[in-house]
C-alpha cells in the first residue's frame, strides 16, 4: 500500500457543500433499510381517519371547516414531529465520531433538511390522495396557485416541514430517544393549546399564539377554505334545539317552523356567520402568503438552531 499521508497537509478536504450529498445518500439508504418508509403509510392511515370523521362538514360550514382545519393541522404536526424526533439523538455518538473526523454539522443538518423535505412531500401527496379517495369535498379555486389542491398541498407540506424541523431541533437538544419521546407529546400539547382555535385564550396570552406553528397552520387552512364566506350552522341549530324541546314556548316553536318553511333559516345562518368573522382567515393572496412565510421562517429558524445546538456535541460527557 503506498503511503499517501505526505500529500495530506497541502490537500483540501470536502467542505460543507460537498459533504451534503454524502449524508443525503446515507439518509436515503436509511429510508430503505432503517424502515423510515413506514412514516408514509402511517401518514395515509391518519389522513384516512381524519377524512372519515370530517368529510361531511369540511369546507361546507364554518364549524365543520374549523374542526377539520384543527384535525388536519394536528395530522400534519404529528407527521412532522414523528419524522425526525429520534433521528439525531439515536445516532448522537456516531455524529460525535464523524464530527471528530471532519464532518460539518451544518452539512449534516442541511442533508437532514433535504431528506426530511422529501419525506414531508411524500406524506403530503399520500394525504391528498387519501382525501380525494375519501371523496372529501374541496373548493375548486385556489387563491395563490389558482388550484385549491395545490394550495392545500403546499400548506400541508409547510406545516409538516415546520413541525419536522422543530422536532429535529428537539432531537438535537435531548441526549436519548427516551427523552425525545417524553418531550414530543409535551410540545405537541403546547402547540395545540396555543393554536388559538382550540381554546379561547386570555388576551395576555394571545401574542404567544403567533409564535406557534399550529396558529399559522389553522389560519392557512381556514383562509384557503374561504372560512369567512361560509355559512354558520351553530345559531340555527341552537334555535332548532330550543324549538324541539317538549316544554318549548309555542311562539318560538311556531316562529322556527315558519322560518324553516319560508327559507329564512339561511338568513340566520348568514348572520351567525358574520359574527364568526375572523380577520386571520381572510381568503386573500396576502394573508395566505403571510402564513406560508411564517411557516417557512419557523422551519429555517429551527434548522439554524439545530446547527447551533449540535455544534456543542463535543461537550457531551463521556
Amino acid at each position, binding site marked *: 500500500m503506498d*503511503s499517501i*499521508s505526505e500529500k495530506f497537509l497541502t490537500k483540501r478536504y470536502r467542505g460543507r457543500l460537498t459533504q451534503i450529498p*454524502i449524508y443525503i445518500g446515507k439518509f436515503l439508504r*436509511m429510508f430503505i433499510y432503517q424502515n423510515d418508509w413506514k412514516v408514509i403509510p402511517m401518514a395515509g392511515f391518519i389522513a384516512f381517519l381524519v377524512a372519515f370523521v370530517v368529510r361531511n362538514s369540511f369546507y361546507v360550514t364554518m364549524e365543520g371547516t374549523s374542526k377539520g382545519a384543527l384535525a388536519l393541522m394536528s395530522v400534519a404536526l404529528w407527521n412532522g414531529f414523528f419524522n425526525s424526533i429520534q433521528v439525531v439523538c439515536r*445516532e448522537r455518538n456516531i455524529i460525535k465520531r464523524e464530527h471528530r473526523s471532519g464532518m460539518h454539522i451544518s452539512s449534516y443538518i442541511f442533508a437532514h433538511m433535504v431528506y426530511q423535505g422529501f419525506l414531508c412531500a411524500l406524506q403530503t401527496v399520500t394525504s391528498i390522495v387519501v382525501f380525494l379517495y375519501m371523496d372529501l369535498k374541496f373548493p375548486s379555486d385556489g387563491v395563490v396557485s389558482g388550484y385549491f389542491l395545490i394550495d392545500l398541498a403546499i400548506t400541508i407540506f409547510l406545516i409538516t416541514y415546520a413541525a419536522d424541523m422543530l422536532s429535529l431541533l428537539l432531537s438535537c437538544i435531548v441526549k436519548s430517544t427516551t427523552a425525545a419521546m417524553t418531550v414530543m407529546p409535551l410540545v405537541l400539547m403546547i402547540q395545540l393549546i396555543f393554536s388559538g382555535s382550540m381554546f379561547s385564550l386570555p388576551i*395576555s396570552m394571545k401574542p404567544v399564539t403567533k409564535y406557534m406553528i399550529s396558529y399559522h397552520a389553522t389560519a392557512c387552512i381556514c383562509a384557503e377554505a374561504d372560512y369567512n364566506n361560509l355559512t354558520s350552522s351553530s345559531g340555527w341549530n341552537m334555535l332548532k334545539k330550543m324549538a324541539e324541546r317538549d316544554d318549548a314556548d309555542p311562539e318560538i316553536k311556531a316562529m322556527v317552523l315558519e322560518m324553516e318553511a319560508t327559507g329564512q333559516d339561511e338568513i340566520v345562518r348568514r348572520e351567525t356567520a358574520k359574527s364568526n368573522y375572523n380577520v386571520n382567515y381572510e381568503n386573500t393572496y396576502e394573508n395566505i402568503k403571510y402564513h406560508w412565510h411564517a411557516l417557512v421562517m419557523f422551519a429555517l429558524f429551527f434548522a439554524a438552531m439545530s446547527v447551533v445546538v449540535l455544534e456543542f456535541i463535543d461537550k457531551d460527557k463521556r
Partner: protein
Amino acid sequence: MLSAFLQIGTIGSLIVEIMIIIGIWNIFRKCKKPSWWALIPAFRDYQLSKCADRELDGRMYLLIVGLQYFFRIVESLFGFLDDEKFIEKHTFGVVIIGFVFFTVIIASIVYTFRIYDGLRILFSEDKKKSVWTLLLIGKFILIFKWGVSKKYQPQFIYVDERDNDGAALSGMVAETMDTGLTVNIEERTAMDFFKKRYLLRDIHLNIEPGHMVLLLGGSGAGKTTFVNAVNGYEKAKAQIVLNGTNLYDEYGKMKYKVGFVPQMDLMRGEDSVLNTLIDAAKLRLPASMSSSERKKRISEVLKFFGLEPVKDKLCDKLSGGQKKRLSIAMEYISDPDLFILDEPNSGLDGVMARELMEGLRKIADKGKIVIVITHSPDRVIDLFDDVIVLAKDSKLTGRLTYFGDIEKAREFFERDKMEQIVLRINRKEEGGEGLADKFIEKYAEVCRG
C-alpha cells in the same frame, strides 16, 4: 393579640436559627471543617453535604437556594406580584415564573432530604426516626442533636483528595523530534464548581515512528483524557508535535493524520460495510483524490482488514470482531500517521483479540505510531514496543508513572505482568497497592539520571 403572635413567631424563628447555627458549628468541629461556615446560610448546607460525602447533592442545593434568593430579591425590588395590573398584563410570564419557582421549591425539599439522609448515615441515626423528625418538627432538631450530643460521632471524615499536594513535578520537557510524536503536556484542567481541577499534569514523552505503544492505567487514571489531549480533540496546555508539525496549531489539517478508534463500534447498523467505508473515505480523504484512486484505497483497506467477503453485508449483521475491524478501517482509510485505539479488544475472545492486535502490529510496522488502550494486555504484550503507564496521584491527577521499553517497565515496577503493574499504582480503595506517588517520583528521578 396579632402583634403578640407575630412577636412569638419572630422569637421562635430566632431560636430555631440559633439552634441550627450551634448544631452545624459543632458538626463542622466533629468533621474537622472550619466552623465559621455555620454562620453563612446555604453555603453551610453545602459544607454539610461535603461532611456527608454528598457533595453533588450539596452543589445542586446551593444552586437551587441561590435561585430562590434571586427570585425573592427581584420580587422585593420590583414587587410585581402585588401589582394586579402587571399580573393581568403578563399572565403568561407570571405563570411561567410561578411554575419555575414551584419546581425550585420542590427540588430544594428533595435535595434537603438527600443531604440529611447522608448526615443520618454519617451519624448512624435510625432512618425512620430521622425522617419523621425531619417531616414533623424540622431539620433544626436533628442538626442540634447531631451537633451537640456526644453520643453522635461521625462514622468517617470526608477529605477531598483533590486538595492534596500530589506527587512532585518532574520539571522535565521532552525534546521535539522531526519524526514521530512528541508529547509535552503541562496540564489539562477543568473547572469543577468554581475550582480548577487537574485532570492531567506533567506528561512528557517521545514516541518513535513504527512503535506500537500500550497505554496502561487503572480506571480514572486519565487514559482517555490523555489520548484526547494528544489527538487534539480536547486541547490541553500542551505542545503535541507529530512528524515536526504542531498538532494544535494545524488541527484543521492534522486531524486527518490522526485516527482515533473509540471503544464502541460507532457506525450505522443499517448501512452496508462498503457504503460505510465509501462515506468514511469521502469524509477523510482529500477532495482532489480521484474516484478511481479512492476506490483503489477502499479495496486495499477492505483486503487488509479481511472485510472483502462481507463488504455487502449490513453492519448490524457483522460479528463483534468484524465490526471492530470495520471501525478501525474507517479511521485507517486516511492512512493516518498516528493511530489511537481505545480498548479495541473489548468484547472479543482471546483468538480474535490476538488477531486484531497482530493487524495493528502490521500497521505499526508500516512506520505508523499505534497507541492502544487495553485492560487485558498480557496476552498480547509481545506485540508492543513501549508502554505508557498513567496513574492517579494522591491529588487524583493523571500523571506519567512510566514510559519506555516493556522489559524495563517490568524491572522498574518489579512485576512481570502488566496487570500487576496496574495493581501497584492503583489506589488502596481500588484494591491496589497505592504506590502511584512513589513511582511517579521514581520515574522522574530515573529520567533526570
